[in-house]
C-alpha cells in the first residue's frame, strides 16, 4: 500500500529511443513506433488489454498546433481506446495514469512521451513559458533563466562553478555505460572549467544537450503487475507541487515544491539506492539533492541524467524508467524518481519506487 492511493501500481516495462542530437530521418510517428512497441512487448500485457493510454508532448516543439495528434498513429488506436494527453512532460502523464488506475476500473496503462526539440530553438521556445507581460518581452532564454537560479544558488551555498563542473563531469562519466546517451566522456571538472561560459555561471557541459527521442513505460496494478513482471517496480508514493513562477518572488536557491512533493510522496527516509533527477542544468541537481533530502551516498543519475540525454517532454518519464529498470534487474531496491516542469524547477513531481 502506498503513501497515498488505494492500489499498488508498478512500472512493469520501459523503453526509450537510441537518443540522438538530431533525428533528421524520422518524423514523430516513426520515432515513437519502435519505442511503444518495445514497451508493450516487454510488459507482457497484450496491447488490446491495456486499459488506458496517455502521452505527454509540446506542440511548440513541432512548430504547429495539434502536433500531438500525430503521436496517436504510432499506438494503433483501433478499436477506439481510452486515451488522453497532457501538454507536459510524460512523467505527469504517468501521474494521470496512476490516478486512473486508482479509481479501480482499469488495471494497466501505456504512457509515452516524445519530442524533436532539435527542429526549433528549444531555449528560445521556452522563453514563452514566462510571464507574457513582464518577462517574455525581454526574451530571456531558458538558459538565462536557469543561470539566474544557478547564480543565486552558488551565492547562497558559498560555492563556485567548480561545484557545477563536478556534477557535469560525473554525469558524463556515468553516461559512458548508457547506450542511449548523447553526451558522455572522461573530462574532469578542471577540464570542463576551461570551457567558455554560455551564461554566467553555466557552461555548455552544465546545460542538457538538445536531444530528439521518445520514451514509454507500461504501468499495472497489483496482481496484473505480479503476473507479467518478475520484479515489479512499485510506486509506493507519488506527488507533485508547483511554485509561483516569478523568479523574483521565489527563494531561488532552493525548490520549495520539490521539497513538498518529496514529503508528500513519502520520500522522507533517506535510504535510497538510486535517484534519477530531472535536472536539466548542473545546479538543479545540487538544489534537488538538498530539497529532496538525499544522502550523499545515493547513486544520483547513474544513467547520466538529462545532462547525458534530454529528450524534451520524455526526460522526466525516462527518470522513472531508469529507476524502474534498475529495480527490475535487481541493481537497486529503492529509488527516487523526479520530474520537473517550468523555469527554474518551478514544478516538481516525486515518486518513491521500490522492488519487493
Amino acid at each position, binding site marked *: 500500500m502506498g503513501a497515498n492511493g488505494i492500489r499498488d501500481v508498478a512500472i512493469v516495462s520501459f523503453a526509450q529511443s537510441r537518443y540522438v542530437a538530431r533525428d533528421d530521418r524520422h518524423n514523430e510517428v516513426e520515432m515513437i513506433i519502435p519505442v511503444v512497441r518495445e514497451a508493450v512487448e516487454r510488459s507482457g500485457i497484450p496491447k488490446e488489454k491495456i486499459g488506458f493510454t496517455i502521452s505527454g508532448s509540446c506542440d511548440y516543439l513541432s512548430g504547429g498546433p495539434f502536433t500531438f495528434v500525430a503521436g496517436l498513429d504510432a499506438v494503433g488506436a483501433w478499436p477506439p481506446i481510452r486515451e488522453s494527453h497532457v501538454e507536459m512532460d510524460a512523467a505527469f502523464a504517468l501521474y494521470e495514469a496512476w490516478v486512473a488506475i486508482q479509481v479501480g476500473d482499469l488495471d494497466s496503462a501505456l504512457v509515452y512521451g516524445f519530442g524533436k526539440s532539435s527542429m526549433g530553438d528549444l531555449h528560445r521556445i521556452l522563453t514563452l513559458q514566462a510571464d507574457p*507581460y513582464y518577462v517574455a518581452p525581454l526574451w530571456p532564454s531558458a538558459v538565462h533563466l536557469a543561470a539566474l537560479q544557478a547564480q543565486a544558488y552558488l*551565492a547562497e551555498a558559498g560555492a563556485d562553478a567548480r561545484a557545477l563542473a563536478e556534477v557535469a563531469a560525473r554525469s558524463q562519466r556515468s553516461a559512458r555505460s548508457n547506450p542511449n546517451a548523447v553526451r558522455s566522456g572522461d573530462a574532469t571538472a578542471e577540464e570542463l572549467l576551461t570551457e567558455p561560459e554560455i551564461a554566467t555561471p553555466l557552461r555548455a557541459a552544465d546545460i542538457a544537450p538538445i536531444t530528439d527521442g521518445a520514451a514509454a513505460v507500461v504501468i499495472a496494478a497489483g496482481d496484473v503487475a505480479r503476473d507479467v513482471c518478475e520484479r515489479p517496480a512499485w510506486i509506493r508514493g507519488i506527488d507533485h507541487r508547483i511554485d509561483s513562477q516569478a523568479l523574483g518572488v521565489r527563494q531561488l536557491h532552493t525548490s520549495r515544491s520539490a521539497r513538498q512533493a518529496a514529503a508528500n510522496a513519502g520520500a522522507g527516509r533517506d535510504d535510497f539506492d538510486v535517484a534519477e533527477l530531472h535536472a536539466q542544468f548542473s545546479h538543479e541537481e545540487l538544489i534537488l539533492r538538498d530539497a529532496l533530502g538525499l544522502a550523499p551516498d545515493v547513486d544520483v543519475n547513474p544513467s547520466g541524467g538529462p545532462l547525458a540525454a534530454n529528450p524534451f517532454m520524455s526526460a522526466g518519464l525516462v527518470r522513472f524508467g531508469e529507476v524502474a529498470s534498475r529495480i527490475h534487474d535487481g541493481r537497486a531496491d529503492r529509488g527516487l524518481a523526479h520530474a520537473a516542469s517550468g523555469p527554474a524547477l518551478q514544478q516538481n513531481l516525486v515518486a518513491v519506487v521500490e522492488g519487493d
Partner: protein
Amino acid sequence: MSEALVEHHVLEYPGGYTRSVGPVIGRFLTALRDGRLEGVRIADGRVLVPPTEYDPVTGAEVGEWVEVGPTGRVRSWTWVARPDPDLHPLGHPFAFALVQPEGADTAMLHVVDAGSPDAMAIGMLVGPRYRAERVGSVRDLEAWVPLADGEHVAVVPPLAVPEGGEAPTGPVGGIVSRVRLEYDINAGEAPSRFLHGLEQRRILGEHSRTSDEVYVPPRGSDAKTGLPTEIEVEVGPRGTVTTFCVVNIPGLSELAPEVPYVCAQVLLDGAHTPLFALLGECDAGDVRMGMRVEAVWADEVGPDQRSIRWFRPTGEPDADPSTFEAYL
C-alpha cells in the same frame, strides 16, 4: 532510401499577439510609460513588483499601490555575451538580472547595462535608464545601470512622440507581442518517400506487412495497428470524389485559389484513405459525390505536395457508391 526532406518553417502570428492587460498590469505599464515604477502592497505588508492582480496569499484583489525605486539592488544576474539584436533590449553584451527596487519586497526580471561581467555583483546598486520612446511596456525601461553610492539616477527623458503622432495619455490597455520562431522540420521517412514519388509524377501509398490497406499520403504507420508502413504501392492517378465542399472564403492562405473553389476528399484507385485535394477544370456546380477525377501535375514538380496541381474530372461515369461509401 529516399533522401530525408527538411523544410524551413516560420511560426509567427502576423503583427504580433495583441494582449489586453487589465487594470493592474495596465497601471504598472502606464507608470513605466511615465518613467516611474509602482508596486502593490498585499495583506501581509509585502510590496510586490511587478504587481500581481491579486494577493497571491489570500487571493483577494489588490488595492494599495506604492511607488518604488527609482534605485534598485541586483539579487542575481547572468551575462549575455552574444545578444540577439532582433529580440533583446540591447544590441551589445548585457546582463539579465533580478532587480529589487527600493521599497519593494520582490525583484523584477530585467536587464543591466554594465559594460562587462566584471562590473556585475549581487547586491550592487543600480538605477533606471528609460527610453525616450515609451509605449507602456517593460521595455520602456531600457536597462538598469550601475550606480555609485550618492550618484544620481538618470533623468527620465521627455516622452518622445512618433512623427505626426500624439502623446498617448490614457491608461495602457494592452501590449503587442511579436513572437517569431523558426524551425527546420523534417518530413520523416514515409512522407519523404511519398514526396519523392510526386517528384517522379507517381503517387505512392504504403501499407504495413500485416495489412493491405494502403495509406495515402503515408505518415509512417498503419494507424490501426501502430505498425510501420513498409510496403510501397503506386496508386491513382485516377480516383473518386467521396465528398467535397465549395469554399467561398477568399484569402485563407497565399495558396488558396480564387473563390469559389472545391475541396474534395479523393479516394485514389488502389488507396484506402482519401486525399484532401483541390479540384480544378470544372465548375463547382458540376461536382458530385462519386465523380471520377485524375491528378493533374504541375508544370514543375518537386518533392512536395504542390506537384499535384489539382484533380480534374476524367469524364468517366460516376463510381458506384459501393466503391467509396465505406471511405467517407
